């Protein structure tokens, strides 16, 4: 088990570093001069621009900038924002909790809605419930988050006045964004759970169980559902990535604080140190979640546990 985890940790580290490197290269290659974007059309003399450039080290060739960035990063120095000279690390740490809260709520919405609807729709295959569940699933997948968000906002905030339209203080402000983002993940999970449930229900052992006179409820929930959860969990791991990227849009729509919003602003202003920092953290969260998902397999599926104990996988 520890062997598995340490190999996974090592590969996770590579993923995090690799994604940071990739982002650095993309940001470097993107058109647009960061200094001029910083000045935002405020006309400035070429001398002043050159001074700012050399101050930021932007006049150096690519490999020098790259080396400098990475050696600093490995020492835990994330640099300062080019827009307002704020240190990047504290800024991210300050905003991470808000994004984590949003991701957790929406992941829970995804899981609960996804599994419940998936199971119901498999059980009532081709019935009304199945139709509604599949519709909600399709809605979640096909609607862009900002659109769903605005619809929910118009309905639950402007018309009904149940929840605040924006802000990031208190659980009430988490409801609409959590639902918006959760529906995206739920869409994927509904489909996954429904399909695997249907597959499992066709397996010979289910027939055996039924033949032995086990109640339909026990067949469904104790046996079929349990076996359908593994793919749903895998899906959840992948969905976290979707949710993390979804926070960029959702946090902007609902005017929430969080690293998604910081990322959006930083990309607009080509604030490379901030973009880098946020991507670095997001990669860590993503990798950590997938690690947890992998480990949790062994709790659900004894076969996985056994093979892991033997040093396999």
């Amino acid at each position, binding site marked *: 088990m520890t062997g598995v985890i340490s190999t996974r940790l090592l590969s996770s580290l590579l993923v995090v570093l690799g994604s940071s490197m990739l982002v650095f290269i993309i940001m470097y290659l993107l058109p647009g001069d960061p200094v001029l974007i910083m000045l935002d059309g405020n006309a400035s003399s070429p001398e002043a621009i050159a001074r700012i450039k050399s101050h930021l080290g932007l006049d150096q060739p690519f490999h020098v900038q790259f080396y400098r960035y990475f050696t600093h990063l490995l020492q835990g120095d994330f640099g300062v924002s080019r827009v*307002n000279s704020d240190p990047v690390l504290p800024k991210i740490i300050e905003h991470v909790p808000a994004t984590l809260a949003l991701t957790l709520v929406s992941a829970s919405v995804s899981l609960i809605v996804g599994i419940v609807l998936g199971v119901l729709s498999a059980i009532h295959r081709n019935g009304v419930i199945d139709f509604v569940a599949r519709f909600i699933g399709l809605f979640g997948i096909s609607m862009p988050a900002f659109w769903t968000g605005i*619809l929910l906002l118009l309905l639950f905030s*402007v018309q009904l006045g149940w929840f605040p339209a*924006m*802000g990031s203080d208190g659980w009430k402000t988490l409801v609409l964004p959590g639902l918006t983002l959760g529906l995206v993940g739920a869409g994927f999970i509904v489909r996954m759970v429904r399909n695997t449930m249907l597959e499992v229900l066709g397996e010979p052992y289910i027939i055996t169980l039924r033949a032995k006179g086990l109640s339909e409820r026990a067949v469904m929930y104790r046996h079929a559902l349990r076996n359908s959860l593994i793919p749903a969990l895998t899906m959840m791991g992948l969905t976290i990535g979707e949710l993390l990227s979804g926070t960029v849009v959702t946090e902007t*729509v609902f*005017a929430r604080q969080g690293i998604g919003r910081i990322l959006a602003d930083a990309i607009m202003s080509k604030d490379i140190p901030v973009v880098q920092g946020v991507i670095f953290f997001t990669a860590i969260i993503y990798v950590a979640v997938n690690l947890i998902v992998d480990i949790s397999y062994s709790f659900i599926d004894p076969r996985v546990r056994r093979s892991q104990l033997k040093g396999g996988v």
Partner: protein
Amino acid sequence: MNKRRASKWMKFALVSATFVLVLTGCTSSKGASETGTAKAAAEGSSTVEGGELTYALATSPDSLDPGTSGYAVSHRVFRNIFDSLVSALPDGTFKPWLAESWTKSDGGQSYTFKLRQNVKFHDGTPFNAAAVKANFDHIQADPGGQAYSLLGPYASSEVIDDYTIKLNLKEPFEPLLSGLSSGFLGISSPKALQQYGEQYSKHPVGTGPFKFVKWSENDEVVLEKNADYAWGPPTADNKGASRLNKLTFKIVPEEATRIGSVQSGQVLAAETVPPQNILALKNDPNIKLEQSVTNGTAFSLYFNTKNEPFNDPKVREAIRYAVDVDSIVKTLYLGTYQRAWSSLTPGILGYDASLENSVKADAQKANQLLDELGWIKGADGIREKQGKKLTLRYVEPSPNREKRNDIAAIVQQQLKQAGVDVKLTITKDTTTLVTKGEYEIFGNSQVKADPDILRNLFRSDRVYAKGGTNYSNVNDPEIDKLLDQGYQESDPQLRKEIYAQIQQYLIKNAIVLPIYLFPYTVAHSNKVEGLKFDLLGYPQFYDVSIHK
């Protein structure tokens, strides 16, 4: 087959569900907004006077240090924290504020201000001549912000005595008082400037009606009442402390959310309402709309007079006839914006009203002119002359603002009708393009309360590479002379005449094509009273009170 039918079903269901959602939204509108108000009223229950105003901003301030910021949105926030030396009246004259009186030297190269006594900054530091000098020094040390350019040919300042300060200029500069009245030259506490250093932009301290409390990034800026305030500007009804206890700016970038939070009562006011919402909100009995036209230059298309074939005024004239500005403004802004006729906005000193209705779109004239100039339509409908196609490069540097990218697209369509091929470049990153002059049409607008704004746009030495914004590359000694007279002339009547001449020149020679005037639009709850706007079109909160 089955699958395809199913997916068709899905689509149908999806569309109808959306419809139902929207329809229920529409019909229940009245009752819902009532609950919204009721809720808001319950929350703020007994706050008839001395309540809290929450105001949703579309973008986040970059800095709250007036000396280094350049953004309108920052100004909206820090105007409440800082007072200025003088106050600008709508008729172009100035009244005392933190300065009790002032005299101008004979040559117009120095101003001596007598300062108001017994004024204190929020941190207890007394306001005096040394404080004013410290502010000017601070601005000179960091020439990045608007404040620096508003001071123009500033040379030095001398403390004559505790409450007298003399400001020296390198040459006469008539827009100085206008600059001094702006929030960008609001006066900071010298103690705070020193204490916070580079972090001052996050800890502003002024003498204004509100004190800074906190700024959470991407979320809100909170200000509270300065109970000791007793030096309100002459433009305000209030002279003492603000009637509001608290003033909170929420940063809400998404339009629908911003408007939605006013409708639901979560905030009491929101800025920059888009045209389609203006129409809808007009019918909402709980909400009032206020518009204030932003002053400076109208959003205009600047024709680059340097490039072939645009160096020929006749070609520019033809293009101007081919663009139907009226239909652009009506189509895009649904009657909520006015079209512009001059380079300057109507609220600015020297605006030439005689230009109104002077040039109208005329497709026939456009075609006729181009034919006469030898640009003949080819097989593809595009005009050619000596084997060269009539192609214009149109650069739009603020794509996301006020539907400016739609303007570009419509102009492209309209000019295509006239046989002109328009290549659009819609991007924020225009430096290379502008420096190399690779465009014939450039969209731009600027905010300022003085007509001297034209100097940076049309004086021959104000080319982009030298820090200017002469997008049209105007290079005419006559205009240079007028622009210089404009900022040096102290007689307001003569100044007006000078700027009228310049505006007429720009239209007569088809150098600019003014498109629209930008109305800064605020939607606020009925309970908000006394919201005013200054000459730049920025909101002022000092007179605001909240009623039931």
